């Protein structure tokens, strides 16, 4: 029996619906799958380890033959400090650029700027790391008279440059999403352009801008290659902007390749992976709660 056209259409409809449903679910499957595998590799050590020592000790000596120590305190401080500093640089620039692009910029300049910013986002992180190593590092030594060029500030500068494009493009979308009627109403009330931005647009686009910033944070904390090359990769609690540091991500990248599978060191590296998972989870959750909180008002 041949299928009628109508039946065929109904079938294909169902098929497409199923495919789309699968696409939607796949994200969840992948996230849980990755979490499961990382957890499985790291879990055996979770039972053995003193969690307080793991999180707060700055003694990271995993390959010691006599007394291996697995404290990631200095690495956590490293990751957090470089991310915070990067955001302190990137947020004003990113949000400022987003405001300029969406409110003050002429159409032609806007086209050029957007293309350039997208180009900035397309630079691979190894290239950023290379720039940090060969350009920024000697520059920092010269300008700030510091003994080491690869340090916290160098890494943060690169991370800032890497997350600015994300903040700009999402921030601009958020500002564009504010209805023109808001702007017209504000101008009709006699507001200057700056007042429109400051009093009307920024509050209205708050959620989107926050999302932009948090995506930037996610980019910064997860970045590996650039920080591995530009922060000095040194286990210590930084006392100044120009101290070298080491991040969680860079530690995994540098050490996993040569660690024998299943060893304690290997398991701890996966535990660090879990920790990174946890950190991003907390960042995202906070973002969600803040956004919801804002919405309720």
């Amino acid at each position, binding site marked *: 029996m041949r299928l009628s056209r109508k039946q065929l259409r109904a079938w294909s409809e169902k098929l497409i619906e199923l495919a789309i449903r699968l696409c939607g679910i796949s994200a969840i499957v992948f996230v849980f799958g990755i979490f499961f595998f990382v957890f499985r590799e790291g879990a055996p050590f979770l039972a053995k380890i003193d969690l307080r020592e793991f999180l707060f000790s700055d003694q990271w000596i*995993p390959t010691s*033959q006599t007394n291996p120590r697995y404290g990631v305190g200095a690495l956590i401080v490293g990751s957090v400090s470089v991310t915070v500093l990067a955001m302190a640089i990137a947020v004003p620039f990113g949000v400022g650029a987003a405001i300029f692009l969406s409110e003050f910029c002429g159409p032609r300049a806007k086209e050029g700027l957007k293309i350039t910013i997208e180009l900035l986002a397309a630079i691979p992180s190894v290239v950023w790391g290379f720039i940090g190593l060969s350009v920024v590092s*000697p520059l920092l030594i010269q300008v700030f008279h510091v*003994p080491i060029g690869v340090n916290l500030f160098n890494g943060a500068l690169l991370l800032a440059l890497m997350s600015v494009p994300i903040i700009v493009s999402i921030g601009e979308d958020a500002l564009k999403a504010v209805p023109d009627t808001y702007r017209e109403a504000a101008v009709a009330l006699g507001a200057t352009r700056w007042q429109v931005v400051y009093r009307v647009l920024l509050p209205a686009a708050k959620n989107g801008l926050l999302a932009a910033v948090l995506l930037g944070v996610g980019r910064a904390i997860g970045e590996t290659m650039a920080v591995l090359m530009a922060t000095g990769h040194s286990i210590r609690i930084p006392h100044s902007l120009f101290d070298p540091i080491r991040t969680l991500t860079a530690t995994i990248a540098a*050490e996993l390749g040569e660690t024998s599978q299943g060893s304690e060191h290997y398991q701890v590296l996966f535990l660090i*992976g879990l920790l990174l998972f946890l950190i991003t989870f907390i960042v995202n959750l906070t973002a969600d709660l803040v956004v919801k909180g804002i919405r309720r008002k």
Partner: protein
Amino acid sequence: MQNQHSRIKTVPGGRAEAAGSRAIQTLALTVLALGLAGCQPDTGTSSSTRKTVIQNTGSDTMVNLAAAWAEEYSKVESAVSVEVSGGGTGLGIAGLINGSCDLANCSRHFEPKENEELRAKTGTEAKEYTVGYDALSIFVHRANPLNEISLEELAEIYRADGRIQRWSDLSVSIPGAKGDEIIRVSRQNNSGTYQYFKEAVVGKDREFKLGSLDMNGSKDVIGLIAKTPNAIGYSGMGYATPEVKVLKVARKKGDPAVAPSIQAVLDKSYPISRPLFLYTAGDPRPLVKQYIDWVMSDAGQKILEHTGYVPLKMQ
């Protein structure tokens, strides 16, 4: 599975620039390891299915050397292609254990534990071939007036609770440097070079002082020292460039200091040198054996000299 993805094929006339791409490799490995941690190690690539390819993985110290050997060998024996990749001694040994490589370049001996693992997985014993020597040179910035250093001083600089922390402790002042702190450049804690330096200088039961800049490749050490006036670091003798200064090393304070050279390594007067090995799992296939024989021959040994390493005997 990991090895397959990080393999660098050496083509005749082109050089594998594995040391430079080590960082990228490591990243790829990390991503892979995170993503594929659940997969079983790849055992499908048994060596018998490849007739003309020798898989050669291992030490970063030896990767330039191995690539040069492979390139030269392709001219001698065009039917055989040696595929060289770096990643570290540990990776080479892992490759032997899970069967993904034929020949491991190692800058240290097999550890008993690794030998056991090899026996359990493949039923063979690790077979060792000493193919040459590598000297660890001590590097400082060009502007540094220091010319020689003793092993004790090096140990005091690098070991935990070591007493030498500033250049003035060595009565050295570096023109144009900011500050007096000695910036220790080291390697990541599971590289063969790091482990050898620890054994030979820091002390087997001692630890490195934390807070050194742990570079991810031999070349990176040189690159950083060239740009950092206060730095000191160690790396293979072959990595020296005109941009950095190589120190003479004395066994003890007061002993004559010796500059790293082929002669000094061979007559054992240079104190920090180590043998380089090729390892196979059990007796090698005839093809691989032939390659090892060629490496030991005059033609192969000459390449050690050309790439900055030390041959087994003076040519």
